[in-house]
């Protein structure tokens, strides 16, 4: 009977950022600079960007940020010219960081980061032509990363963080079986996922002006152990689509970053980050159902992602001691190869444009804001579903954070 081919639940955060997991909505200052900053100890978000560089922060601090994300995708079917839009709710990535040092002479620095490298919902309009591939995907994900950094000299530091990841997934699609009134059946797969990983970094002030950062974020396997599969199908097919449990997993790939910082003068600092993301870990998406039937077979869908680079360039200009302006852009290569573009990841090579502003009120309290815009366009025929058309996506992500340093 009907072979239920469940499609990937990866990475709608894509719609917000470069290739998913190495999202750079983890710090407003860095966001304003194209997502670069592994070689600039800007603020407590360094817990994420480079655990080593927190040793070179001038203060202990607490930093809370939020980036409402608006992503809109338009799909145009090649053969019929029919269009389908997303009407996804606002994405809500947030981050919270704390960094503590005992004194200026401390050798050890401690940090804690809680952030959301995934976390958005993509929802297509009702009855769109790709409804049997995907109607809705909600992904929630929180990384909790306690971190320690060791200042080896006044030039060099190393740092490491342990990552505990917890999240949930909810995937919905229509099934091409019809009730007597003509409406289609549907499937909903939901579950909680957990994973572990780590984040290590190296930081060096090479010269007065030049700094270098190298970080490695490990792969995190998000495993869904006891997911819930629910099917809405005509009564006569209920035994073909038994509700039950399923297992699956999703790799969040390892990321190697090599970064440089350059202090042009007292006002202007530049940052360049190169990320190498090992997306090839995501070669297959499998769903194993507890109870199989002729209609409900375990699926193994080829994803065939490839390893990619992102290049991030940004600058910060101190207009006054209190006020900073930031500008940046990022060129991110897509890991999704031709033939594997799916409605949940209508990904493409892209350029992110970002800008930001920061203001420090007095000594302790400051605010940073950023704005990211990107446009993606990808035409493809998916080898599994034969969906053939063009996805166009606009993303706008304005963010704000507040910090307190002491």
């Amino acid at each position, binding site marked *: 009977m009907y072979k239920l081919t469940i499609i990937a639940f990866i990475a709608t955060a894509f719609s917000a950022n470069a290739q998913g997991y190495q999202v750079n909505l983890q710090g407003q200052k860095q966001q304003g600079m194209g997502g670069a900053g592994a070689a600039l100890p800007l603020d407590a978000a360094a817990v994420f960007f480079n655990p080593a560089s927190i040793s070179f922060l001038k203060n202990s601090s607490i930093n809370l940020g939020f980036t409402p994300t608006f992503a809109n995708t338009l799909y145009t079917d090649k053969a019929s010219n029919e269009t389908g839009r997303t009407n996804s709710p606002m994405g809500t990535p947030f981050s919270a960081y704390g960094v503590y040092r005992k004194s200026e002479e401390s050798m050890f620095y401690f940090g804690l980061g809680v952030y959301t490298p995934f976390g958005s919902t993509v929802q297509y309009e009702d*009855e769109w032509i790709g409804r049997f591939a995907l109607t809705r995907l909600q992904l929630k994900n929180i990384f909790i990363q306690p971190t320690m950094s060791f200042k080896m000299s006044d030039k060099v530091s190393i740092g490491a963080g342990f990552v505990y990841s917890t999240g949930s997934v909810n995937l919905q699609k229509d099934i091409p079986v*019809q009730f007597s009134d003509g409406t289609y059946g549907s499937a909903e797969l939901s579950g909680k996922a957990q994973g572990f990983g780590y984040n290590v970094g190296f930081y060096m002030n090479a010269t007065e002006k030049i700094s270098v950062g190298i970080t490695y974020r490990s792969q995190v396997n998000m495993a869904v152990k006891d997911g819930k599969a629910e099917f809405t199908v005509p*009564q006569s097919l209920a035994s073909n689509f038994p509700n039950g449990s399923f297992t699956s997993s999703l790799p969040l790939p390892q990321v190697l970053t090599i970064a440089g910082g350059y202090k042009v003068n007292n006002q202007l600092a530049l940052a360049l980050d190169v990320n190498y993301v090992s997306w090839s870990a995501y070669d297959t998406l499998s769903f194993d159902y507890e109870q199989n039937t002729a209609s409900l077979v375990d699926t193994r869908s080829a994803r065939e992602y490839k390893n990619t680079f992102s290049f991030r360039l940004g600058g910060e200009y101190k207009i006054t001691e209190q006020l900073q302006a930031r500008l940046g852009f990022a060129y991110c290569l897509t890991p999704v190869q031709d033939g594997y573009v799916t409605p949940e990841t209508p990904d493409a090579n892209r350029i992110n444009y970002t800008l930001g502003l920061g203001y420090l009120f007095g000594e302790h309290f400051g605010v940073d804001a950023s*704005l990211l815009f990107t446009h993606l366009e990808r035409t493809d025929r998916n080898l599994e579903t034969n969906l053939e058309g063009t996805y166009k996506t606009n993303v706008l992500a304005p963010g704000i954070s507040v910090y307190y340093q002491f």
Partner: protein
Amino acid sequence: MRKGIKFSLIIVGACAMFACKPKVEDMESSAGDINTSKFVVIGGSDMAGMMDDGLYYDGQINSVAAILSTQFELVGASPIQQAMMPSSSVGYTIFGNAPLELGYKTDCLNVTGLSPVRSAQTGDGASFSMNTYSASAPITNFGIPLLSVAQLTTIGLGNPANGPGNYNPFFARMASNQATASVKSDILATQPTCFALSLGMDEVMLYAAGGAKNGGLISTAAFDLGLNDLVGSLTNLGAKGAIATIPDVTEFPYFTTIPYNGLNLDEENAATLNSIYNPIGIYFHVGANAFMIEDPTAGSFGVRQMVPGEKILLSVPLDSVKCNKMGSVFPFRDEFVLELSEITEIQNQIAGYNDVIRATAVNNSLALVDAHTFYQTLNEGIVYNGVSMNATFVSGGAYSLDGRTLNPRGNALLANQFIAAFNAKYNATIWQANATKYRGIKFP
């Protein structure tokens, strides 16, 4: 500064609400070299919207002709005029029944399961026998089930007065004058500027679905003559069109659902059959066995076991197979079986007709729709926008419950083949139908 912030907030707010939605680019559709002012469809069951073994409103509005017309209307065509059954009617099969729907049926073994069942006690013969022709809106869908190419010029083909078997009841429903009109004369009277034509499948199916027992197939020469007479007349009017090849109907679910070796025997039944048939050299064993059929050429008793490649038709009474030893003690009669020689005969004739159709397309500069390959691909299994379809009965998703005709979704796929052929031949950009909007089989 403050102004700047305010300004960006407005931009962000506006963008968040609507400005950031990617714009739809207006892709121009176009009829290319085709004049769509009078679009006419000519064919058989597929064009008529026959499905689930009958003619009924919901099938007709989802006919290949209707779906094609919907897409042609985007490039200037008028809505198609079909010989509609009333929307309130249950519909009608030529044997007086109501069409099939999926329901529950209890078989002779008292097992209840999903099965095609009649949607009503009897068919709506009164509506079926009504002539729907209207001079103010003449028929433009000449999808006429059971039509043979040899009958295109037959005057009075739609005349019930000729008596049962001597007229086509489907043409009777649409003929401008039942006594004097021929299919060809009614088609030409509409003065087509473009046409979609799919002829031949119905007559091949009629023969094959009867187990290749009754009548025969017209010669390739007769097919050539009939087809070219009509196509020549259409192109003389300056009409442009697309013409479709004939699929291998023996690969439709009607012929492939019951396996030739579906006779599953336990020890006792095998012993019984062995006691009957061992004397003439036929042996049975526990497990899957080939069914028994009548074959006058087989030995002195005229019975034999089926061989791989032979087909059992869906018309076979399954209760008799399950409970009354049909196909074993009582071999299947000829009308329920396609033997290898019959399959070869049918396939060869289809190949001959298709040669004629291809030559006709070339000689008249028509678009060729390779329906033969389309059905072959569909039967082997396709994925359309995430929907898997194949020739499996009911669950295959593209055929209707009679196993001989497509359901609306399958019709949309076939209509898209016509559109692709029109586009390629006539520099046109006619959008294909979104087949996910056309239903498959409804389940209770």
